């Protein structure tokens, strides 16, 4: 299981938006589920302006 998780973490995101943000959101298990997608969009918007 651990090896599988490591393998996932070494992957890159899909370049396609709808798929990519879902992939990102699913990994944010430390956030409440209902906030994950919103936080991904917020983070992406902010990181682009860093």
């Amino acid at each position, binding site marked *: 299981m651990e090896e599988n998780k490591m393998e*996932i*973490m*070494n*992957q*890159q*995101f899909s*370049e396609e*938006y*709808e798929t*990519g*943000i879902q*992939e*990102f959101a699913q*990994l*944010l298990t*430390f956030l409440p589920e209902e906030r994950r997608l919103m*936080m*991904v*969009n917020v*983070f*992406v*918007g*902010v*990181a*682009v*302006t*860093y």
Partner: protein
Amino acid sequence: MAVNAQLQEKLDLFKSCVKFEKPTRVPNVSCDFTWKFLDSEYPLSEAMMNNELIEKVVFDYHERYQFDTYIDFGCRNHMKVLKALGGDCAYKIDDESGAINFQEKVLMEANEYDEYINNKSAMMWKMFMRKFPGLTKGQAVQAMGAFLQTSQFSGQIIEKFVANYDTPALFNMFSVPMMPYENFIGYYRGMREGALDLRKNKAKLKEALDKDFETAVLPRIIGGLSQPNEKYAFDCYTALLGHSVMSNKQFEEFYWPHLKRLIDEVVARDKTLYIFCESSILRLAEYFQDIPKGHVCLHLELDDIFETRKRLPNICLAGGMKTELLGGATPEVCADYAKMLLDEMGEGFIFSQDKMISFRNDCKRENLLAVNEVVKNYRP
């Protein structure tokens, strides 16, 4: 939310100034960013990556210089998030020179305005992938953690300043609406392409800016102004940066409509707005001359503050203390200049430096101490 008497006294100084009422003393704002780290014993690259050190640097700085508030509390710092995102970090720290250099990258092509306008979220994702090529899922998760921690840390530092030093933040970090053009010239298109777009992509740029304003910036303005901001010196903050590449005509078309709406909302709600004006705004004075007194403070950088006062007697001005003196003159010369500034500017003036003090040569400790002693003891 109730504030204690000492904090309220400091808040009242700013309220008096913006309304052109005589304050009990002239408030002093620190316009420093990296200089506080250069003034410490820690290398820049080490301090900026360590929250404990940031906190130590920021509190030591306050105990040394005793400003009434700060444009930055050490939190305008994306290093940890960018490090987690990996790749070639956009910011390069040079500990020897004390400089932080920003490597810009064109993230959005000129022919992608339609995609931005019609599907902004997808275009942001595209820009994110371009800014951080090769980003792994693990790096992104770590970066999200660093982002949340940094946001939390920023709030904590501000709370500690209030609790430990009765010192308010200049503004609420959730009430900072930057005008839409700033993102295009600063990040999406870069300086060169963003400036060229003003001529070569006028219609699409205008459409993108107007849409961004309605969907993203205006809600932020209204949300920020609706918050209880009684713990902050000002209700709202923004910075004028991109205007510096525009002609007056371009400013009127691409920038002013959005800025005017921000100012109108501030005035309509009887709130206050602090605008940091990078470069020069004196050539744009006509746009600010009809703003009712009592709402807006302009922090000047390159402009002569005395000339600006004549042109805009309705606007509170901040800044004035020349960094060429702070960095190159004696404490006596600096102190004399500070006294002259305070005497001449009178009401509607907030003392600060005339530019962001960011480099080692921008300021000497003994000069800043001498100046701040003058400001602290000056009685209008």
